[in-house]
């Protein structure tokens, strides 16, 4: 019987049909998905912090409204994804507790500080840009609710990237000091952006199984290459350079060659030793704990409404 279920599952995946919540699925598939989608959801939620840092200091009402809308979208992305994990039997509060206790991860990119307003532009352009590269293929991931969440998210991400690039174009047409600020932000965010695709394929332990299950559709190195190829002409148009002496067009491959990020730094940040790890988690924990009374009050209000209604029904009977 188990074999038969397994076969049916394999057949569905191989035929490019989607696995849906009430389908039988191997435990490994379910657990991999919960881990990956939760990590993705946590990244969206923690990712609100580096940009939230600049909302109150945005240089104009226009930029402030844009930044607010973007950060609100990231909250929405987190919620779509938590919703997808719940179709697999996970519990949202449990996942939040795991995040603030450091038992589940989020993308290491959000452990870098946002030092100037140019960072708001570079994050939109490169960080959301890298996220889009990662996420577009996930619109075809084998688990239905995850794929559908990714479709919604990708639609919204294009605004994120474009507002960032436009912000940078505006700064680049300003003073020399503003142009320097943009280049400085690019220098700081380029390598961490490349790290967003994960370790090189040779060291990525989960890739093979995830590709077989069609959860993942491309390897880390394939997506990283694609991102570099897309970003180079955008940088040229903007008038900035990437801090990589090895970056050049390779006619033979039809792709850019580029250097490797500092993977020791990557693993250090993943392990919790990045500049902002402690701050990000402490902030998330505080928001969760400070919100407890609101959740309890709403619950008490709902319970009272129910008992009021019950009384009225009792009286009219």
């Amino acid at each position: 019987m188990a074999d038969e279920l397994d076969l049916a599952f394999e057949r569905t995946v191989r035929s490019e049909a989607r696995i849906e919540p009430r389908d039988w699925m191997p435990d490994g598939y379910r657990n991999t998905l919960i881990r990956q989608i939760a990590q993705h959801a946590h990244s969206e939620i923690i990712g609100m912090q580096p940009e939230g840092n600049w909302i109150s200091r945005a240089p104009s009402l226009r930029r402030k409204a844009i930044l607010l809308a973007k950060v609100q979208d990231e909250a929405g992305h987190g919620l779509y994804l938590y919703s997808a994990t719940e179709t697999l039997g996970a519990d949202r509060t449990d996942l939040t507790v795991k995040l603030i206790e450091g038992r589940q991860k989020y993308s290491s990119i959000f452990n870098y500080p946002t030092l100037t307003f140019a960072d708001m532009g570079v994050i939109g352009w490169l960080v959301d840009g890298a996220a889009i590269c990662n996420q577009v293929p996930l619109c075809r991931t084998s688990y239905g609710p995850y794929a559908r969440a990714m479709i919604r998210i990708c639609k919204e991400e294009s605004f994120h990237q474009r507002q960032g690039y436009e912000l940078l174009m505006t700064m680049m047409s300003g003073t020399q000091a503003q142009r320097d600020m943009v280049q400085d932000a690019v220098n700081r965010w380029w390598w961490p952006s490349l790290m967003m695709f994960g370790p090189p394929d040779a060291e990525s332990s989960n890739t093979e199984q995830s590709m077989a299950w069609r959860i993942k559709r491309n390897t880390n190195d394939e997506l990283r290459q694609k991102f570099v190829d897309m970003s180079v002409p955008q940088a040229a148009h903007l008038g900035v350079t990437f801090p990589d002496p090895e970056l050049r067009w390779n006619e033979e491959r039809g792709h850019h060659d580029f250097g490797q990020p500092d993977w020791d730094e990557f693993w250090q940040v993943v392990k919790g030793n990045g500049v902002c790890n402690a701050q990000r988690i402490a902030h998330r924990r505080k928001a969760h704990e400070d919100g407890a009374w609101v959740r309890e009050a709403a619950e008490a209000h709902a319970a009272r409404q129910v008992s009021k209604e019950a009384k009225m029904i009792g009286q009219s009977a």
Partner: protein
Amino acid sequence: MSSSWPLWEVFVRGKRGLNHVHVGSLHAPDAEMALRNARDVYTRRNEGVSIWVVKADDITASSPDEKDPFFAPSGDKVYRHPTFYAIPEDVPHL
């Protein structure tokens, strides 16, 4: 804690003339809050003109395992489809 808030499934009508379509879920203490939260989470860009929220517990679903027997009654009723009927090609508007 929010886990004691019930789970609500959210359905959105994209525009007049279309059915409500399932878009996802959320937690909320009551139906009114579920509706407000659904607006903020699922319709930030005019994706809908109407929202339904339904407690997930109140939904009864067929199971994919019983898919074949469950939908079998419609399988052998080919006469429910217009293509079942052979009409000469020179009969117009049919």
